[in-house]
């Protein structure tokens, strides 16, 4: 195990975050605050409770998930895309590091950043809305599991992308809609039956539902199914990365 190699990549990525504090921490925190102000305080005060939870508090898990997903993907995809773009990837490819170590470094750093960001957003939410966390252990586990899974997904996007447009397209065109339709702002019980069924094909539903369960003990789908689906997606991403390194796809010619 090349411990120093993993540490070098991890530290490099973390220092990139410190350099871009405005973009990687401040901007998601501000946009989440705006959601809290608009949907939590302004509109939320006119909305009824959902599952006996005040609307402002109800949307917190979903909003944290929204940022967590977007940031995990963007951190990890940028992390591996930039060296490809600038050409510095040669050094990683020529170094005595295995692909597991490369992934540990890049994905580990991206997930760490997302988890820190998620916690900052949770703390910020406290300024606007009162909420409680019923299962703190599960909340943290879900946070970490989701951050890791979507950082892996972002890593795959970063390798697949051969231009900045492609780098943006998956988060914008796929992940954002899935998150908005994944029950951030509503319980899927509130949808017509046909849309409830369609929603079950949206992986984000399981993440948000499970995360909300950790907060309030209520969920759209059973917690076991949520955990199972998240793990399934995690393994799918791992398989994708294994294939990428095995074939050298877009890394080694």
């Amino acid at each position: 195990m090349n411990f120093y190699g993993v540490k070098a990549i991890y530290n490099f990525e973390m220092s990139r975050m410190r350099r871009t504090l405005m973009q990687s921490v401040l901007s998601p925190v501000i946009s989440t605050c705006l959601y809290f102000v608009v949907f939590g305080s302004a509109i939320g005060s006119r909305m009824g409770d959902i599952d006996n939870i005040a609307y402002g508090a109800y949307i917190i898990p979903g909003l944290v998930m929204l940022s967590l997903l977007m940031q995990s993907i963007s951190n990890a995809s940028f992390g591996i895309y930039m060296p490809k773009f600038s050409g510095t990837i040669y050094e990683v490819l020529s170094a005595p590091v295995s692909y597991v170590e490369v992934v540990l470094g890049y994905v580990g750093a991206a997930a760490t950043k997302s988890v820190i960001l998620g916690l900052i957003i949770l703390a910020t939410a406290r300024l606007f809305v009162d909420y409680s966390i019923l299962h703190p252990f599960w909340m943290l586990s879900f946070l970490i599991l989701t951050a890791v899974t979507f950082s892996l997904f972002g890593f795959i996007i970063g390798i697949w992308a051969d231009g900045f447009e492609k780098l943006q397209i998956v988060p914008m065109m796929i992940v954002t809609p899935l998150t908005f339709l994944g029950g951030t702002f509503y319980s899927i019980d509130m949808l017509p039956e046909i849309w409830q069924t369609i929603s079950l094909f949206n992986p984000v539903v399981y993440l948000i539902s499970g995360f909300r369960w950790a907060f309030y003990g209520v969920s759209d789908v059973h917690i076991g199914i949520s955990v199972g689906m998240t793990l399934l997606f995690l393994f799918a991403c791992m398989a994708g990365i294994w294939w990428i390194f095995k074939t050298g796809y877009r890394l080694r010619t």
Partner: protein
Amino acid sequence: MQPDISVKNLNKIYEGGFQALKNINLEINRGEIFALLGPNGAGKTTMISIICGIANMTSGEVRAGGYDIIKDYRKARSTIGLVPQELNTDSFETVWNAVSFSRGLFGKAPKPAHIEKVLRDLSLWDKRNNRIMTLSGGMKRRLMIAKALSHEPRILFLDEPTAGVDVELRRDMWEMVRKLREDGVTIILTTHYIEEAEEMADRIGVIRQGEIILVEDKSQLMSKLGKKELRLQLQNKLDEVPSELKTEPVELSEDGYELIYTFDSQQEQAGVARLLRTLGDIGVDYRDLRTRESSLEDIFVGLVHEQATKG
């Protein structure tokens, strides 16, 4: 002694079917400076990329530092430092962090004293806290070398190290390469510049269209490659080469108005003076004279032609 780099039957065929390397066999000895010459697109960088682990080979066997580059990739790659042709650097990191990153990546424990030495040797010490984007092109080139040396490799690849580098810096680099060799580092350098190979290398390999067409000791090759030509335009037509010049490598052009003297660079001082003196003595007047050095291109064409006629 086993060679530091050993390449056996190496082939590289790209997806589109283009064969970049054709059955390459090459051995590079411990502690030598090996210059790989070849025109653009000959396969120099492809070969280096494969040895260093950046590109996959189609078939063959490559060892670095005695280790198979696939089965024993960790050990093989640990022995190698690579300075690629392109100036690929991060813009926002500092010089110190970038070089320390490289050392860590290659699995070595931090050793600030070594990083300091490398930066001092490359005149980058004063710039250690500067961001890379503030460096000049020449400094970036040296930074690339510092990164490659950060993990104390015993084999160093320099891919076109002096492309776009000014004369003074080029001299400094040659000096540095010699020093590294004294420390026992094996150096493989690619270049278009014949004088660079002449200045530095112990042995020279020529690659063309994916094939190694020649590997030879520098001194032997230089006598072959360093041909020069002196053309004298005569006042009066000659029917044949004057008998006094019969022993010299002199030819007469078809129209009889030009004497062509071919010599290699080692003989130039003595030979040209002697020829001109003799012409004066025997009363052959000339209007003009010009010398021409064989360009690298001529040399390649010559070598390939020679290869073809041999085969």
